């Protein structure tokens, strides 16, 4: 399959200012050298706990935040090299869906004008009649009706708002959608509706997804491949069944064993990790996971592990594999 998005050695350090004269005294290493590809038509899941850098990654790819270094190629083109105008055009192909359905829609605009705005930015309207038809069509595509266009966001439930956000994204007919925790703010019964919608759209429109989430069950359900992040690094990445059935990195193993399973008959051996995730300001030396890793050895403290390929499409960054 063709690689649609190629990310290489992407880094983002947020400076920390302080001291007597407000100089830079350190950096939050939010994303610290990650590489991955997303193939056309697939869903790549990006999982990790809070502060691992997964949301920052999504924003870096879209250049909503400027990366410190690294490269992002979309359809073979290096988008970090684009100027403002070229980037504006490029944005049509790459879109984002957000986590909070209450914060992602302008409360002062009607649903219709929210969607129209997206169409207008990229001059996708032929004439005035076209506007209404397109808006209705988009709303229907996400399971709402044309009558909803005249209403304001506060008149909708969380799940419906998420649908409106999706309609806005679909308006510009993107090739890839970065979905940043799109269902984690929703109730269980509504979550399923939105997940199904996303899957239907992918099938109908041939979309590619980068699906960012902390919920491993959701990620497994929707993804083809899954990458696991810890403290700004990708520690393991594989085809989803391979990753969930045969996790090789100790962090992946612990993460999987920590998920509560909605079935009281399943009895598992839990790996309970000690302590908290260390601060990304001064991340641990060597392997970043060594402070919590049950198998850590001397080498883990000293040397950063290199990424190894251990099977078809299965990579892992651990000294012990």
């Amino acid at each position, binding site marked *: 399959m063709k690689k649609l998005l190629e990310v290489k050695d992407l880094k983002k350090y947020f400076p920390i200012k302080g001291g007597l004269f407000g100089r830079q005294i350190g950096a939050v290493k939010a994303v610290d050298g990650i590489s991955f590809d997303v193939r056309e038509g697939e869903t790549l899941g990006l999982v990790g*706990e809070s502060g691992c850098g997964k949301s920052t990654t999504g924003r870096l790819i879209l250049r909503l935040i400027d990366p410190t270094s690294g490269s992002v190629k979309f359809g073979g083109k290096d988008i970090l090299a684009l100027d403002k105008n070229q980037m504006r055009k490029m944005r049509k192909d790459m879109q984002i869906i957000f986590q909070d359905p209450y914060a992602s829609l302008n409360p002062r605009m009607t649903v219709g004008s929210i969607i129209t705005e997206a169409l207008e930015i990229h001059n996708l309207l032929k004439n005035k009649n076209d506007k209404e038809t397109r808006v209705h069509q988009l709303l229907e595509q996400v399971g709402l009706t044309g009558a909803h266009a005249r209403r304001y966001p506060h008149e909708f439930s969380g799940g419906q708002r998420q649908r409106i956000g999706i309609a806005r994204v679909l308006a510009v007919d993107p090739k890839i959608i970065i979905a940043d925790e799109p269902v984690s703010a929703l109730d269980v019964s509504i979550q*399923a509706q939105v997940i199904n919608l996303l899957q239907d759209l992918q099938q109908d429109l041939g979309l590619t997804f980068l699906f960012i989430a902390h919920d491993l*069950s959701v990620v497994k359900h929707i993804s083809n491949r899954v990458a696991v992040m810890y403290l700004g690094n990708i520690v393991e990445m594989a085809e989803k069944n391979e990753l969930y059935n045969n996790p090789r990195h100790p962090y992946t193993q612990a993460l999987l064993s920590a998920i*509560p399973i*909605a079935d009281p*008959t399943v009895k598992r051996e839990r790996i309970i990790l000690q302590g908290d995730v260390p601060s990304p300001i001064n991340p641990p030396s060597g392997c970043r996971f060594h402070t919590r890793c049950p198998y850590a050895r001397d080498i883990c403290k000293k040397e950063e592990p290199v990424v190894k390929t251990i099977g078809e499409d299965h990579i892992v960054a651990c000294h012990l594999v």
Partner: protein
Amino acid sequence: MKRPVIEIKDLKTYFFVEEGVVKAVDGVSFEIAEGETLGIVGESGCGKSVTSISIMRLVPNPPGKIVGGQILFKGEDLLMKSEADMRKIRGNEISMIFQEPMTSLNPVYTIGDQIAESVMLHQNLTKREAFSRAVEMLDKVGIPASEKRVHEYPHQLSGGMRQRVMIAMALSCNPKMLVADEPTTALDVTIQAQILELMKQLRDEFNTAIMLITHDLGVIAEVADRVAVMYAGKIVEYTDVMTLFQKPGHPYTIGLLKSIPKLTGNHKRLEPIQGVVPSPLNLPQGCKFNNRCPYAREKCFEKEPELVEVEKGHSVRCWFHDQLQ
């Protein structure tokens, strides 16, 4: 079965707002025994949190008010108690932990202060004794370097650590009952695992009755002994945890179980519950679930079903529960 620590009978808590009356909790009954964990599960707005603050008698008034029912704790009705008597029970015999560890501790006092405060109040200890009790509790909940940590402020601790402090505070007076309102929802999954493990361990050690409120069926399956499923202010199903997952009796429970993605097995398409939770000011006539229920028939729109025991220890609020499986 062990004797119940608490029995809730037909509890009703309403909120009187400008637009009308919200029947947040509308006739809820359940009981919890020593050392037992009752899980209360439901989606946002179903009344599970209001149930918990009703037990603590901390419903904000106005606009909220407990308008009916009984809360029997050690045989006495908490709703009949004076505020002064109630204060002797809160934090002492019934304790509570909350969803947001980041905001549930007072930012301007050390965690030692905050734990010791409870102990001094309820156990008549001196400040010095209370502080050593605080250190002991911090040890129990697995906070390293407790002697030093006891003098730290909440903002110096991570979310997981703060939730441990909340638990230490709640258990510091050896309560008979612990009310835990979504205690792990705000935490990461590896930290959630730590906290759930800790709660199980402490329950066994102190033989506390736990009421665990959550929206996460996974958490329920892990720690609950029995479960009450709530929808629109009412319990729709009430049974032990095995039965709930293997033989769910209410269409809402069935719907919930079908709509969550599974970690094991292959992935069929999810089957979501259609529609949205109705507005609490505008609940449907008859069964409150009728507008989303795939099995709804005429009767469901006419009359609301009672919660009936369909077999021993398994109650369901549905006209057609016998025809569902």
